[in-house]
């Protein structure tokens, strides 16, 4: 009985410890700008009752959703192509490797100059964050398709198209999906960063505004809500992943 619930108990325990530490740190007065856990939760409750938090999320999720969809389609497409073609790999991969390590904050003024301060720039920020990991994961997965499966497809007269669609893609899809999950979490960071650095809207607006009027509990409530939202969403994506690849790929992992 106990063993079965152990993972859950451990999760609860660690959550309680973290929030407890937050509460204590807040009460001890680490900084006047650091509210206690309970104050922050009260603020979050306030934001929820007012409905502010919902309108804020509707705003924040717009560039996030658009950016993730674009990154997923283009990223997987490019990744497959890179994985299949050595030449294209040589030509395109470096761009994404640079993109992955580029300091995004430095690029934002440039984006604003070109695309203004609207949705487009924010979508770009999300894409810059999310796309590289999706592209590189997809390319790696495609490139690492077990050779013996490809040979099998060839020996049974599969066309190039058959081999890509029926062997390479299914074999790569668990890792592509994992890349997608990483891309989504990077996209979250991008979306918030865009709201803090371009124009304060949505959740970024709550954070910026609360800070400007020194309403720290509200500010922390907003930050806390993002973290919870991101964790829940990623959990959800992981569920889909487990559902789609329910152990049928065990062999892939072991050999």
């Amino acid at each position, binding site marked *: 009985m106990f063993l079965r619930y152990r993972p859950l108990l451990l999760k609860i325990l660690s959550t309680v410890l973290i929030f407890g530490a937050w509460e204590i740190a807040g009460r001890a007065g680490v900084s006047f700008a650091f509210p206690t856990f309970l104050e922050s939760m009260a603020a979050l409750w306030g934001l929820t009752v007012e409905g502010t938090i919902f309108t804020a999320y509707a705003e924040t999720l717009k560039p996030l959703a658009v950016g993730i969809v674009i990154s997923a389609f283009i990223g997987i497409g490019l990744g497959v192509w890179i994985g299949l073609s050595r030449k294209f790999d040589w030509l395109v991969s470096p761009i994404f490797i640079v993109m992955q390590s580029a300091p995004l904050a430095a690029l934002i003024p440039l984006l604003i100059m070109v695309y203004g301060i609207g949705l487009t720039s924010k979508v770009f920020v999300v894409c810059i964050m999310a796309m590289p990991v999706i592209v590189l994961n997809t390319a790696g997965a495609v490139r690492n398709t077990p050779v*013996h*499966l490809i*040979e*099998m*497809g*060839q*020996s*049974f*007269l*599969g*066309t190039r198209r*058959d081999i890509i669609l*029926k*062997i390479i893609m*299914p*074999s790569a899809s668990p890792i592509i999906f994992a890349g997608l999950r990483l891309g989504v979490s990077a996209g979250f960071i991008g979306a918030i960063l865009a709201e803090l650095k371009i124009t304060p809207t949505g959740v970024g607006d709550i954070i910026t505004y609360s800070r400007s009027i020194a309403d720290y509990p509200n500010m922390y409530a907003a930050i806390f809500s993002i973290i919870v939202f991101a964790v829940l969403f990623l959990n959800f994506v992981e569920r889909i992943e487990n559902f789609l*690849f329910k*152990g*049928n*790929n*065990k*062999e*892939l992992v072991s050999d």
Partner: protein
Amino acid sequence: MDGIMTTTHAVEVRNVFKNYGDVEALHDLSLDFPKGELTSLLGPSGCGKTTLLKIIAGLLPATSGEVFVNGETVTGPGPDRAFVFQDFALLPWASVLRNVAFGLELRNVPKSEREAKAEKYIADVGLKGFEHKYPHQLSGGMRQRVGLARALSVDAQVLLMDEPFSAVDEQTRRKFQEDLLDLVQNENKTFIFVTHSIEEAVYVSDQIALLLPRPSRVSEIIRPGGFRHKDPDSIRRDSEYLDIVDDIWKSLRTYVE
């Protein structure tokens, strides 16, 4: 095209060399595979048996030399050859049924037809009831049989079998050897069969090619057969059978030592 040769040899390998970088796997290997017969390739591990099979299959280009199947030069895989892979090469995400039918799927055979055919061969290799299992739910020997059923289901003229019985238990192995003899008898197919077992080679083969260690050539061709008409159990006690096993062992042991 060579008119006389094509009627007698399903596959001809002519002066084939194969280098992997600076590793010379095959050195001037020539070998004929008579039509309707089973030829075994017997040789030490790493001598290039899989390499030769893949060259015949058209999966690997030879560095030089030529391979003919039914008199025509091999330039790639063809419908006249089917491969049983040493490492099974099953799709982990596909059921046994889909795996067995996969060769037919790639040939655009309609679903109901290919599944009916696959079910027949699944039963033939003794996997009835496992149609909807996945490879990771099967033992090594069962996976091997899935690969075997897949190769049989495409009905190719030449079957290239890379150690197809290596992962099955001894009883199943004997049963398969007998089934294989039936197949050779009843279907007019040519079998190229890689094995590490001398007894197995002598038991099932019309012709055995002994390969030298790398760089590999054919060192000896043996044609057992005086005992072929006997019943399975007495073959294993037949004096010719035992003599041939002994001779081969003597030839091979010089490389082992």
